């Protein structure tokens, strides 16, 4: 399994750089960045990513609501969504998973294993 295009939805510019570099260095050719949920929804149909890596606490539209809208839209509901967030309580993970996300990765993440963790989650879910 390979990932050729990831849509990274993250408001922190430094984390955008680290996550993008981490994915690029581990073999993902294209990483497109959205700075919040609104931007993600605006560009997702055009970008057509293999995966959306979604932060939770963001301005304008948070990750939970973004995920809910992605899963409610027949055009985007099949795109796998994985949360990458500092919100790591049981109930927060549960809330994310109930919205139809494939998995939940917590910050701080290890950039040297981020890609392999994403692939593992996709494989576990047969995506």
């Amino acid at each position, binding site marked *: 399994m390979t990932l050729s295009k990831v849509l990274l939805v993250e408001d922190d510019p430094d984390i955008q750089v*680290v*996550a993008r570099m981490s994915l690029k260095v581990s073999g993902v050719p294209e990483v497109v960045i959205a700075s919040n949920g609104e931007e993600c929804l605006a560009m997702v149909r055009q970008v057509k990513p293999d995966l959306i890596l979604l932060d939770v606490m963001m301005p304008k539209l948070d990750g939970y609501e973004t995920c809910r809208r992605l899963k409610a839209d027949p055009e985007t509901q099949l795109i796998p969504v994985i949360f990458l967030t500092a919100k790591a309580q049981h109930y927060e993970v549960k809330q994310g998973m109930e919205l139809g996300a494939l998995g939940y990765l917590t910050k*701080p993440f290890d*950039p040297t294993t981020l890609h392999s963790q994403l692939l593992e989650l996709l494989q576990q879910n047969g995506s």
Partner: protein
Amino acid sequence: MDSAKTKARITIESELLDSILSAVAVVDREGRLAYCNRAFAQRAGIERGQWVGRPAAELLTLLQPRLFPADVAETSLRWSNDEKESMQEVEWREGERTTHLREDSGPWRDAQGKVAGRIFLYHDISREKEIDRMKSEFISVASHELRTPMTSIKGSIDLVLSGFAGQVTSETQELLEIAHKSCDRLIRLINDILDLAKIEAGQVRFKKVLLDLTDPVERAIRGVKPVADQAGVSIRLVRPDSLPQIEADKDRMEQVVTNLLGNAIKFSPENGEIVVELSLHDHWVQCAVIDRGCGIAPQDLEKVFGRFQQVGEPSRKGGTGLGLAIAQGLVHEHNGKIWVESQVGKGSQFLFRIPAAAVKASG
């Protein structure tokens, strides 16, 4: 006491009860409203004279549309033969406005000590609830705001160390490894501070299930093995063939044992052995983590569960200074007990007990 004095006393008591802000109601053994103070009547919107002596169930029917959640409201203001004191929280909704009430109830005993009814006190705890919500929000925001910069600092160092940004000299590598190690330490400290704050604020949501304590204990031993190996310390598990189940959060039990083991490793001499002993004591499942370290002086025993307390001379560095405080908080949240027994020069044993889950009668 003559009747005039009795009357005067009753008047004073009634005036006192009418002067307090909390609502008070008394239900007698026949389930009738025996008394209510002014605050109760005002909140319920009733005329006292019309309701005292009438069935409390009728009053409850009148009030129930404003009491939430419904299952909790069901048990409110009811006579029961239960002599125990109890406490529950209910919400009182009046239009758009919600007031959080804590209902304390207990037996009303007459002069001979016989139970004559049940007293209900309703305290407005809306302010406390608001503070709890603010605490919760603070923890959530602090957690996010502290972890976000740590993510980019650690991530950047990781990427440079992995050679992504080009070859690094051995000196640069050494300095980056120090920065990396310190980042990890800071992340552990942030996690522990937030964890302890959440436990103390009652903000941890536990996923309690029936489990055998052996399982999280074994997972904790596996988890700390690399650190123990590095320190030259071995860990041996001693357990009976079977143990009753406990109702607990598996991850949190593992965290308790991990913290106790982390402490034991820190104080164990090289080539030392730590014994983890599981046993049953009456209705308690007990776990003891026994080390052969320097031990703790009697006057310091109480300090060990405090925050950032360093008691004795550890054989090696590490830990955030909050591990035992977190373990104590988690054990208490499981209705358990935790303590330490120690002899200077011989070692310490940290013990905790969790109540065994009640076995449901078959048939």
